[in-house]
């Protein structure tokens, strides 16, 4: 090939690459602007505030201090609330996995007809807004709710029972209700990606159902388990609306509620920001630790 032709070809390639890069940049720009403007910049602002000083109601002094973090980490009240929030998040996460796994397994491996219908039904439960679903629990668990109505109609109780609403139990039920569909979808998605040949091979090699499950299916679904647990754990631990609406007199305050209290009631953004970042670090640590389970090779 003559040198001139080679140079022209190279120039054309470069030009094509430039156009491709430009196209990519143009396509990504809106997302980058939105993520940068609506997530990164506010987060950085919050990070800066977490090292600033509260000068009284709504006033901030930008002198560097670690006092917000030390007070959050050493205060027994915050520690107690953290235990409550992360504990509830962990229990809800595990409960969702335990309940979601059999459903996802059945849908993925046993259900032949109606698989899509089953998944639609799972998705259907997400169509109602978060708040509507929380308020719906009033009509199920409340004094005049469905359960009390049924129990009284059947003559099982004379008076409405009050212990099923406004406590940790109702919080747990609501969280599971909210996050179970997500867990099912994540696990189903993971299971459907398992090649059937692998399972058949396990059987061909003499593995029974239990061994096939513990040595083949379970390790291959670990990614979905980790994702579903982390998703539920983080969103449950960070929720402040559900405890406020359903927690009653004893479980209405979680760690996330103290953030809103600091920002909206107390007028102390630096402490609110410090609590936020402590929670963020805990989430990263938990996610990292749970992520180590990906190395799991079977029981």
């Amino acid at each position, binding site marked *: 090939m003559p040198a001139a032709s080679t140079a022209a070809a190279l120039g054309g390639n470069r030009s094509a690459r430039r156009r491709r890069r430009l196209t990519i940049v143009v396509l990504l720009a809106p997302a980058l602007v939105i993520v940068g403007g609506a997530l990164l910049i506010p987060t950085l602002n919050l990070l800066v505030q977490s090292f600033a000083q509260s000068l009284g109601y709504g006033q901030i002094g930008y002198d560097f201090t670690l006092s917000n973090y030390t007070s959050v980490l050493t205060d027994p009240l915050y520690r*107690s609330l953290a235990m*409550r929030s992360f504990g509830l998040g962990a229990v809800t996460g595990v409960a969702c996995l335990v309940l979601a796994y059999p459903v996802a397994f059945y849908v993925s491996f046993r259900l032949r007809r109606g698989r899509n219908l089953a998944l639609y039904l799972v998705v259907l439960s997400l169509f109602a807004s978060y708040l509507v679903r929380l308020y719906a629990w009033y009509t199920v668990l409340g004094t005049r709710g469905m359960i009390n109505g049924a129990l009284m109609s059947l003559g099982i109780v004379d008076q409405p029972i009050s212990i099923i609403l406004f406590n940790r139990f109702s919080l747990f039920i609501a969280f599971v209700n909210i996050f179970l569909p997500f867990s099912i979808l994540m696990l189903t998605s993971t299971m459907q990606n398992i090649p059937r040949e692998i399972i058949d091979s396990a059987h061909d090699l003499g593995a029974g159902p239990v061994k096939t499950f513990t040595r083949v299916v379970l390790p291959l679904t670990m990614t979905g388990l980790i994702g579903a647990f982390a998703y539920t754990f983080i969103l449950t631990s960070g929720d402040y609306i559900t405890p*406020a609406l359903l927690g009653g007199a004893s479980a209405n305050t979680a760690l996330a509620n103290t953030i809103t209290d600091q920002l909206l009631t107390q007028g102390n953004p630096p402490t609110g920001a410090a609590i936020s970042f402590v929670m963020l670090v805990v989430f990263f640590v938990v996610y990292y630790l749970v992520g180590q389970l990906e190395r799991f090779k079977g029981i």
Partner: protein
Amino acid sequence: MIPNEPESPSQRFTRRQLIYQGAVLAAALGVAPGILAACGGETGTTAVASGSAAPGGDISGTVSFLSWQGYDLVGVAAMDTWCKENDVVVKSTYISTHADITSKFTTGGGKGIYNLSTYFQGYGPFYESLGIPVPLDMSRIPMFKDTYPIFQTGPVAEQWWLINGNQLCAPFTWGLMGCNYDSEKTKAPASYLDLLKPEFKGKVGIVDDVIGSIVIGAHVHGIFRENSQYTPDEAKQIMSYWTELKKNARTIIPSYGNMADQFVAGEIIAGVPGWAAVNSFAAGKGDMTVAHTVPQEGAAAFVDGYMIPPEATDLDTVYAFINEALTPEVQAQTAEFLVQGAVSPAAVPLMSAETAALYPYDQIDEILTTSAPLEAIPVSVPSGYVSWDEWNKIWTAFKAS
């Protein structure tokens, strides 16, 4: 969470939320027209916000408003009409906490941008010390002379908005927060202590309202102070009432709108701190039996007023807006719109019977001086007294217990 008796920051937030079904921070950017010089550039407390145009001149212009949604009176028919007829444009930025006002006018970002804001009376002395409100030229708000006398002169006015002879805001609405109850299931509690009786076991709702709770707890023990300065021992006394009441509590309620829901659902038969507006919220959901009372110990109250912040422009427009907000017709419609009290006696006959019945207008002096005296937000207290941060921590610990 939310506004407080008078109006703790959080309470204020929730009130707005429940009134307007979801307090969303509107992003309306009230960028005031440029740097139109001279009018009101002074920020000191001795400079009066006065413009150059003569009263009665052209009032068209822009009201750049920063405060709670609803307080810009957008949606109040008479005010909307007035704005349209006078070519007045209202550009609003809504807050989610009273601290937003403080920060906007202390750390910058608000001066010269907004020309109208509001404050809850409890912030009066604090804001005066920060130099936030520019003293008003009351000759340009003639309708203020037709408000109840208690809003114009006397010790109440001098404590909260007529400070050191300077009129720092023009009150335009007020409210009362005692105890709500289901009149079909119980008689009006004569005392907050009645709620500790066995018949209220599991039937009381406590609103997550720091300020309202401090005020009512202090009233219960007879140690209420208008400056909200309490020693740690007094704070324990105040909280002892709430600790006892919590034993009878069905739930801690996140907002006054949610309190109405709990009445309607039959979960509670009494709610405290209460708010007269809850009656309306419950009635709107079909429950006509919720009532409000001021028990013998007293109640919390709040007064909100329009203030002009430093470096405000378009002052002719702003003064005309404030003046119009105090006319009887606008006041009556505002009372209906906000479910709060009017400051103009001439507005009362123009209200619906239900709205007029929400607040005891014929006893307004006695209410705001004796039964439900106004109080300060304890954002700045001398050493030896419980600070605002400490109060919030005490309240959080109470909720979490």
